């Protein structure tokens, strides 16, 4: 008699609860139903049409029968499950959905958590920059131009451009022959700020504060070479896309799609304070020097430029005033050492009188 269990039976036509005895057999479950007068009826449920309700508790099992109307059994003896598993293998009924196994098994959960988190990290660390670069490299030039022009107008609207010196600077840049004709515009901003940056689409902005610290044309050439390398490699575009992608990934977790818009806005503002990654900086340094060498300019210029800036940082750090250029272009000893190691013999470089005269007119003092 261990084969028979107490249960409540519902016929699917009314909600009245009838007492029943349930006996599992090989292909069927035999159900004996007692009505209120004590009369018995028998039902046979074939195994393949039985479904167990997923979240019925340990104390009460619910079996549903795929009939019209749908009948229902509420069984108060959980031992029926072990009986079924041991003797009859009603796999369809007792098998757990894989997601519920995951839900139940704590260790599996932890393992999955760890792998999901590490996958996430891996994706963020390697996958995202890779994808971001792919996207950036496949963006049409016109997109970059428009973006760059838009950012430039909004940034420079609050600045005063020195138009004469801008023309001179442009001539200087053109003379360097780094870029194809008419692809890059350079601007000189009247300001004490020690900074320079590049925008998508080929705009380079230099602040007078930085310009006045330079002593030789090769240093300016190095600066422009570095900035142009950023343009050449589309670093700003790539950096921005990587940034947005990061925000996007995070907002997926928190379910906030509005964050992408916020990210776009945040990025436009951050152009003054782009956090270029170290890789980008090193890339720009090296490419910049390459440009210089190709055009016969003394590439000691980069090392000197970096040293000037480093001194600047050291002398002004007591005033707690870090030149902006340095906060956005982290200066590490490595960069100076790197620049030094790439210096070629000065015999391959030649003096360029045109560059010298343009440079002289640039650093001519304007009275503030």
């Amino acid at each position, binding site marked *: 008699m261990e084969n028979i269990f107490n249960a409540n039976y519902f016929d699917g036509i009314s909600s009245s*609860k009838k007492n029943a005895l349930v006996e599992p057999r090989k292909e069927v479950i035999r159900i004996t139903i007692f009505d209120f007068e004590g009369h018995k009826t028998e039902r046979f449920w074939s195994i393949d049409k039985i479904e167990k309700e997923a979240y019925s508790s340990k*104390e009460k099992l619910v079996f549903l029968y795929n009939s019209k109307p749908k009948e229902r059994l509420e069984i108060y003896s959980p031992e029926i499950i072990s009986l079924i598993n041991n003797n009859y293998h009603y796999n369809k009924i007792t098998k757990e959905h894989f997601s519920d196994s995951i839900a139940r098994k704590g260790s599996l959960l932890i393992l999955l958590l760890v792998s999901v988190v590490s996958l996430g990290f891996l994706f963020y660390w390697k996958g995202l920059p890779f994808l971001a670069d792919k996207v950036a490299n496949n963006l049409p030039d016109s997109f970059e131009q428009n973006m760059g022009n838009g950012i430039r107008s909004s940034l420079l609207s609050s600045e005063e451009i020195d138009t004469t010196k801008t023309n001179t600077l442009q001539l200087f840049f053109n003379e360097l022959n780094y870029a194809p004709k008419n692809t890059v515009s350079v601007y000189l901003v009247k300001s004490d700020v020690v900074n320079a940056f590049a925008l998508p689409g080929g705009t380079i902005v230099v602040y007078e504060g930085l310009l006045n610290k330079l002593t030789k044309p090769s240093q300016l050439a190095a600066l422009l070479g570095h900035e142009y390398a950023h343009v050449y490699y589309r670093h700003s575009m790539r950096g921005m896309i990587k940034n947005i992608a990061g925000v996007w990934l995070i907002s997926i977790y928190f379910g906030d799609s509005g964050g992408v818009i916020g990210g776009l806005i945040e990025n436009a503002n951050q152009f003054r304070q782009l956090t270029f990654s170290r890789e980008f900086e090193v890339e720009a340094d090296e490419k910049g020097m390459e440009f210089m060498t190709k055009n016969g300019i003394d590439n000691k210029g980069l090392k000197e430029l970096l040293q000037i800036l480093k001194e600047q940082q050291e002398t002004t750090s007591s005033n707690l005033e870090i030149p902006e250029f340095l906060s956005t272009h982290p200066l590490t000893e490595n960069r100076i050492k790197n620049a030094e190691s790439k210096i070629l013999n000065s015999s391959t470089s030649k003096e360029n009188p045109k560059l010298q005269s343009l440079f002289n007119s640039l650093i001519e003092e304007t009275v503030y």
Partner: protein
Amino acid sequence: MEIIPTQTSKHQLSFSGNGSEFFGILFSNWILTVLTLGFYYPWAKIKRIKYLYENTGIDGSNFSFSGTGKEMFRGFIKSVLIFGGAYAFLIAANISHNITLAIISLLVFLFVFVLIFPMAIHGTLKYRLSRSSFRGINFAYKGNIRTFIKLYLGQIFLTIITLGIYGPWMQVNLRKYIFENARFGSAQFKFEGKGSELFTKSVLGILLVYITVFIYFYWYVKNIIQFYINNSKIVLDGTEYSFECSISAGDIFRISMFYLLGLITLGLAIPFAMVYQTRVIMENIQISGELDLNKLTQAEETISDGTGEAMSDLLDIDLMF
């Protein structure tokens, strides 16, 4: 084993779920959804609803939910197509710089956007109720979509032109329509709340919340919940039985603290908060009167459209039944 009497003067709802089980479900839902890039979401939602339903009960039996991920998924696709189609049309029309086309697309989009709310609510109710049952007896929703759309738009219009003052009447009218069109086998429902009552409670409540620097907030929430539940009735064989809610302000406070904990733990405690909330609410709802839950009879055929449910999900509409 419980002793189950067939008649009592008060039926109590019960909830048997627990936080760690629910955590497991929500967590595996989240993982699978992320791994499948969102594809799994309809199935995840079904599991969540099923867990809450099948652990809620009255008179010794629990509710059942027979919705499937597949139905939900189909509905999801449909709603994405409708909404996405209107949106795509809007964008395409604007890119084409054709003014007439752009205006038409804007009107289509507004049309879809305005109608989506009532349609989603209607569809969700129809789907969810048709998939809900108790002891084999199915629930159903008999509301008519055209009637409801007209009602909904009319109520919104009145609320807008009265700058929100009509709001409580709108809430009550919509709630009444929906509730009284629900069916539970041979049983029906009544909602007797009045807009004026809700209005007074809301205005006084908000004033007091300001005066007491937020402390009154928990009593305010309790009052609103009780307003809705205590004015609801179930009608079987001509007799009306009232729902009652015995929740306290302290319960509301504890629930919100639990959710705060959820926030602090970066979401980890939220399943526990949700289970706690469901248990506290359910175990504070009673039906008074000698309602015999053995006397319900089957009435409805099921329908198979999951669109409404998926659409309301898209718009994050939460219906507190």
